[in-house]
């Protein structure tokens, strides 16, 4: 094989090594592009879930509503006390009315007796007392009706008295039940809200803690980013090999034998250098590949560990664990539902009571109407009294009636006064009682509206709390520590690393070919030495030194200098910093 053979082989090796150089550049370059993106993704992941404490905020809003509701209940309680006192007072007024009615009853009885006496006198007077007899008869009937009316009024009063007492008792009982229901609701719901707030805080804090720990994944990625700089060394090393191979390819058979021997002796050194450099390249790629793989494995292990920790944490705090958000919320929701049902039931009871109050107002009205009959009877008494006095004055036979008539007049006047007093008492009573029941009704309406508003606000708040809680749960359950983009890039990098294995194989193949080239060069040198008739030929160092000067990596210079048996200037170590 002549120099033409070197040239073809050198070109083929150079092309393969160029491929190695460009492929490593591609793989390292891809990592150089992806890893900063992945690190930014990590940083984005850490920053994306800021603690908003929205559940705490909402529960606090609802707690404020509950406090308002509680305050309204206390205020209603005070108003009830006032109204019940007023009711009691009115029941007392009913007693006064009864005293008035008793007076009318007594008046009526007396009038009845007077009428009997008058009837006797009329009978004794014979024909002269006939008209008087009719009058006394009428008087007896009016007195009897008046007495019956007082009985009816007394009955109505007794009835009202009983119903008032029942109404007061039932109103008080209803309100007590409402207070009890509220107090039985407030304490546990406050506890549930406290747990929800604490649960949310725990969840957010735990998530943030795990996310904060996820930053450790950045370390192996940063390490990879530092190591991709080695591609520059791989590239330069391959350039050194290429430069050497170009020298080999240029050798010519057209020169004198001595020149060709100088040339071949110099060229014989270059395959060793190239093999040495390729060994360095292989080592570099292998080291990088292992280091990249280790960093990726470290990152993967960290990712798996953190994801598992996150899943365990979410399971424990979100769905199933004691004190988990979902279970606590379900407890709170049940408390609300029960309280809403109870409130609705109590409001229905209170509504029934208000209807009873309306009936009571009607009863009082009816009683007042009945009392108006006393005024009619009083007028009748007055008419009879007048007619009686006329008859007594007209007929001397009725002289015995004079005293009786005088008593009748006095009694009629007393009845008028008693009826007037009764009517005044009854009117005052009816006015007060109507106003009182209107107040009870207004209180009920306000209470109903307050309860209705609270239930509506409560329902809305429960829905919002549920939505927020679900959103929080979904956010914690659904979000991953590492974004899809991060995971995708991470997985792709794993695949890219396998490309480096292929490149190592290429380098190994080219190394074998260089060893074969070395043998070919040595054979050519042996052939030329045989042609010259010598057994050895000394190396001309000039060209070797020129190549060394062109090298940028000290170890390569040193290696070639050792082969050429000359010295090169000592150099600084890799990574060394010199400030001038």
């Amino acid at each position, binding site marked *: 094989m002549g120099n033409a053979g070197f040239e073809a082989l050198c070109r083929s090796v150079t092309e393969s090594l160029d491929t190695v150089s460009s492929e490593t*550049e591609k793989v*390292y*370059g891809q990592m*150089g*592009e992806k*890893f*900063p993106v992945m*690190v930014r993704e990590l940083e984005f992941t850490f920053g994306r879930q800021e603690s908003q404490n929205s559940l705490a905020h909402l529960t606090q809003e609802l707690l404020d509503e509950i406090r308002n509701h509680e305050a309204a209940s206390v205020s209603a309680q005070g108003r009830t006390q006032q109204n019940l006192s007023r009711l009691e007072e009115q029941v007392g007024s009913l007693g006064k009315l009864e005293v008035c009615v008793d007076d009318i009853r007594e008046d009526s009885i007396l009038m009845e007796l007077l009428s009997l006496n008058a009837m006797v006198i009329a009978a004794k007077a014979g024909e002269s007392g006939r008209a008087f007899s009719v009058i006394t008869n009428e008087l007896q009937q009016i007195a009897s009706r008046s007495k019956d009316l007082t009985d009816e009024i007394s009955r109505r009063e007794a009835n009202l008295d009983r119903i008032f007492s029942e109404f007061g008792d039932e109103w008080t009982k209803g309100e007590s039940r409402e207070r009890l229901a509220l107090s039985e609701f407030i304490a546990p719901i406050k506890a549930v809200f406290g747990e929800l707030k604490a649960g949310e805080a725990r969840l957010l804090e735990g998530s943030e803690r795990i996310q904060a720990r996820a930053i450790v994944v950045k370390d192996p990625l*940063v390490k990879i*980013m*530092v*190591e*991709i*700089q*080695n*591609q*520059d*060394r791989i*590239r*330069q090393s391959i350039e050194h090999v290429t430069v050497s191979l170009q020298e080999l390819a240029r050798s010519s058979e057209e020169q004198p034998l001595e020149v060709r021997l100088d040339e071949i002796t110099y060229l014989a050194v270059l395959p060793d250098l190239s093999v040495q450099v390729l060994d360095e390249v292989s080592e570099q790629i292998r080291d990088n590949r292992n280091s990249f793989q280790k960093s990726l494995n470290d990152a993967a292990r960290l990712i798996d560990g953190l994801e598992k920790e996150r899943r365990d944490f979410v399971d424990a705090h979100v769905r199933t664990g004691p004190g988990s958000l979902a279970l606590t919320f379900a407890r709170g929701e049940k408390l609300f539902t029960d309280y809403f049902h109870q409130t609705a039931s109590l409001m229905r009871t209170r509504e029934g009571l208000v209807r009873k109050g309306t009936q009571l107002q009607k009863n009082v009205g009816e009683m007042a109407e009945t009392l108006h009959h006393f005024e009619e009877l009083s007028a009748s008494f007055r008419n009879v009294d007048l007619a009686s006095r006329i008859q007594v004055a007209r007929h001397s036979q009725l002289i015995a009636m004079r005293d009786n008539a005088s008593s009748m007049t006095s009694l009629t006047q007393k009845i008028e006064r008693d009826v007037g007093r009764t009517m005044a008492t009854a009117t005052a009573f009816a006015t007060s009682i109507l106003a009182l029941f209107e107040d009870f009704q207004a209180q009920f309406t306000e209470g109903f509206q307050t309860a209705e508003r609270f239930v509506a606000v409560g329902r809305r708040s429960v829905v919002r709390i549920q939505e927020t809680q679900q959103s929080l749960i979904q956010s914690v359950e659904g979000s991953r520590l590492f974004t899809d983009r991060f995971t995708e890039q991470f997985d792709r990098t794993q695949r890219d690393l396998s490309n480096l294995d292929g490149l190592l194989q290429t380098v190994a193949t080219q190394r074998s070919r260089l060893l074969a080239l070395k043998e070919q060069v040595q054979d050519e040198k042996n052939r030329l030495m045989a042609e010259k008739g010598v057994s050895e030929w000394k190396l001309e160092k000039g060209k070797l030194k020129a190549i060394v000067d062109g090298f*940028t*990596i*000290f170890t390569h*210079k040193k290696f070639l200098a050792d082969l050429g048996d000359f010295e*090169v*200037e*000592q*150099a*600084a*170590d*890799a*990574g*060394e*910093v*010199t*400030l*001038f």
Partner: protein
Amino acid sequence: MSKSILVVDDSNAIRQSVGFILEQAGYQIVPAVDGADAVPKLESQSFDLVLTDVNMPNMDGIALTKHIRQSARNKFVPILMLTTESQADMMKEGKEAGATGWIVKPFDAEKLLGTVKKLVG
């Protein structure tokens, strides 16, 4: 406002690696693929530091350093040579051209950052 650093290297891997490390530390990076690419950038913007390779096509790091020291803008900017060249005569050449310091590749990330901080703050 973050400090700006011009990173000049014909190796994509070096630009990526150095750029990433310095960006992570809060510096703003402007990359250039060689001296010729760096010159117009130096004319249009002031930098707090220039970090340059030595061996590059078109215009090498030594020529670039000389150019910077003669330019109106960025004349006094610190220049760090980041290169595989490690022998004293090359370093001397860099120093004479006006370089502020010399770092031999492959660099140590902490040392690189420490040096940059020392020069730029």
